[in-house]
């Protein structure tokens, strides 16, 4: 049974910085919804959710994490936007033997070299984004690529992963240009991409960089000129910020789209009522992570981390976010991803109706083979 008379979940993410839209306060709402949907109690004790803003600073995040674990009886921490934060908190959780479920960070390190028996990676990762957009687009004829890559590790790994899938599927990479982080003007790079004649321009960057690149691509008539833009990490929240006018025709991959079926739409509308916006894969992922965590506790009959981790590895995931999802030994939750295209303004029938689903990427294709992940837990 629950050790201290309650189960406490911490949602730790960026609530005031660059990733505030990506998850932020709304993720806390998502977690609350999951608790309510579960019934508010597990094993007869109340479930509490606390939240904090780590400001994208790993030291603040780890401070909070330690304090939560040590003095506030928090049982698990979720969301964890930004790789540096996620890795730092996962290390602490491992040391303290507590569960962490990452839905907000992309790095495959979490389930690779730095994996933890108590750490789980839920919504997406760089690998699945690469496979989704890279692999699937080639099949649709986008067989020559030019990359606009943010000049740091995240950008490289997105580019590298994607390029591999492009090549594996018979496509080719005709060029790439590395742009510095926080570039405001992409016109030079876009000009190079334009003159390369590639069919697809892959944007291996994130946040404002991606938005600006897309906006300026529209200005220089790139999509009208017949080239396709593929944003490798881009979600509903950012599309909303950019507007359909500039974003139309863009291809991207997400683990969730609210308007995909009736069930997702129902969830989306509920979420919308509480937060004023539709959920993206981070929000839905956090919902799913909380729900699954509670299911695991109930199944284990205890909130002891070892027991819960065992159940989390064993239980299939079936909820609004994932169907028949499974958790690999390295902590990776494997589920389907969706290749999406942004609608033209005239195609959008209602607010937030932004995507056409181009393809569903089966989980086993989307995520890395655990055996190849470099996680020591897999072999044992």
């Amino acid at each position, binding site marked *: 049974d629950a050790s201290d008379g309650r189960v406490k979940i911490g949602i730790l993410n960026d609530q*005031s*910085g*660059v*990733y*505030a*839209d*990506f998850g*932020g306060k709304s993720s806390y709402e998502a977690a609350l919804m999951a608790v309510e949907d579960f019934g508010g109690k597990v094993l007869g004790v109340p479930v509490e959710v606390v939240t904090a803003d780590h400001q994208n600073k790993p030291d603040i995040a780890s401070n909070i994490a330690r304090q939560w674990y040590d003095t506030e009886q928090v049982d698990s921490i979720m969301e964890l936007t930004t790789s540096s934060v996620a890795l730092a908190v996962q290390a602490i959780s491992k040391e303290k033997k507590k569960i962490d479920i990452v839905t907000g960070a992309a790095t495959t390190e979490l389930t690779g070299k730095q994996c933890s028996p108590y750490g789980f990676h839920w919504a997406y990762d760089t690998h699945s984004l690469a496979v989704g957009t890279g692999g699937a687009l080639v099949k649709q004829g986008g067989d020559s690529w030019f990359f606009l890559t943010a*000049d740091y590790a995240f950008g490289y790994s997105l580019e590298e992963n994607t390029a591999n899938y492009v090549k594996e599927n018979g496509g080719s990479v005709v060029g790439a*240009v*590395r*742009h*510095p*982080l*926080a*570039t*405001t*003007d992409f*016109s*030079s*790079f876009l*000009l*190079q991409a*334009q*003159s390369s004649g590639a069919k697809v321009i892959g944007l291996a960057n994130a*946040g*404002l960089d991606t*938005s*600006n690149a897309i*906006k*300026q691509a529209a*200005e*220089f*008539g790139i999509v009208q000129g017949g080239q396709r833009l593929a944003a490798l990490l881009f979600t509903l*929240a*950012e599309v909303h*910020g*950019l*507007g359909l*006018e*500039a974003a139309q025709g863009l291809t991207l991959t997400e683990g969730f789209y609210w308007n995909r079926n009736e069930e997702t739409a129902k969830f989306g509308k509920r979420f919308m009522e509480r937060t004023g916006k539709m959920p993206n894969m981070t929000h839905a992922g956090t919902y799913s992570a909380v729900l699954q965590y509670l299911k695991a506790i109930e199944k284990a009959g205890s909130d002891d981390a070892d027991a819960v981790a065992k159940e989390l590895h064993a239980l299939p995931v079936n909820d609004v976010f994932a169907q028949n999802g499974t958790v690999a030994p390295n902590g990776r939750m494997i589920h389907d991803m969706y290749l999406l295209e942004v609608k033209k303004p005239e195609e959008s029938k209602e607010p937030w109706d932004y995507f056409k689903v181009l393809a569903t990427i089966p989980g086993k294709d989307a995520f890395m083979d655990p055996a190849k992940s470099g996680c020591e837990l897999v072999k044992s």
Partner: protein
Amino acid sequence: MTTIFGIPIQAFLGQLLIGLINGSFYALLSLGLAIIFGLLRVINFAHGAQYMLGAFTAWLLLSHFGIGYWPALIVAPLLVGLLGAVIERTMLRRLYSLDPLYGLLFTFGLALTVEGTFRYLYGASGQPYATPALLAGGTNLGFMFLPIYRGWVIAFSLAVCLGTWLVIEKTKLGSYLRAATENPVLVQSFGINVPFLLTLTYGLGAALAALAGVLAAPIYQVSPLMGSNIIIIVFAVVVVGGMGSIMGAIITGYMLGVAEGLTKVFYPEASNIVIFVIMAIVLLIRPAGLFGRDA
């Protein structure tokens, strides 16, 4: 095909032009920064925030009141300038008698507050702002596809820069302003209303930043962070140009825009730091900056 440094001359020309466009923003922003610094001895760290405010005001005007680009080009700088004037009147003014570092620290705090507030209210990912219909589309220059709006940015910013420079350097008002920064009390004893002049100056500087913001709105995402990204580069531009030199700020703005543009072709990884590298070299050779007078 003719090539220059191994790239086709056409691509080269295109990049040159693009550099000039970016330079327009650098020039406009460093102009305002140089004016405020030159006349108030305040390093206006809030300049980026005021640039962002300009863009946001344009966006708010459009989305809440249906006021379009052209009126916004006047109204937004006016509003931001007014806000600047109020801040100068009520707070900044008290710091003039102190070491200029306090001005820097105060405006730093101001920038944090303003950016934080907008991030809190509107999120960080940015808002769209459409190109005005009149300037939509582009022309094919032969060597590149030039969006008409970008051409407009170059022309308009050049006109604004020159106009401002003329006012400051060649009019009586300008000489009052310059004198007032050195010894406000004495200038006041000559019969000139210095406090009002200083308020006007800060307002003008803020308005110039806001103007750059409105110009930027259709090109970049209107986002609370747009200013903090660019401000540090603009600082470097002003240092290279020679702080306090208004013409220096303008010319260096365009020059470094072009230098950065060309770096993006030859060695894109370095394009973020090329301006800082130039700055280091300039400081070694001419510590006062390219156009600065020795202290």
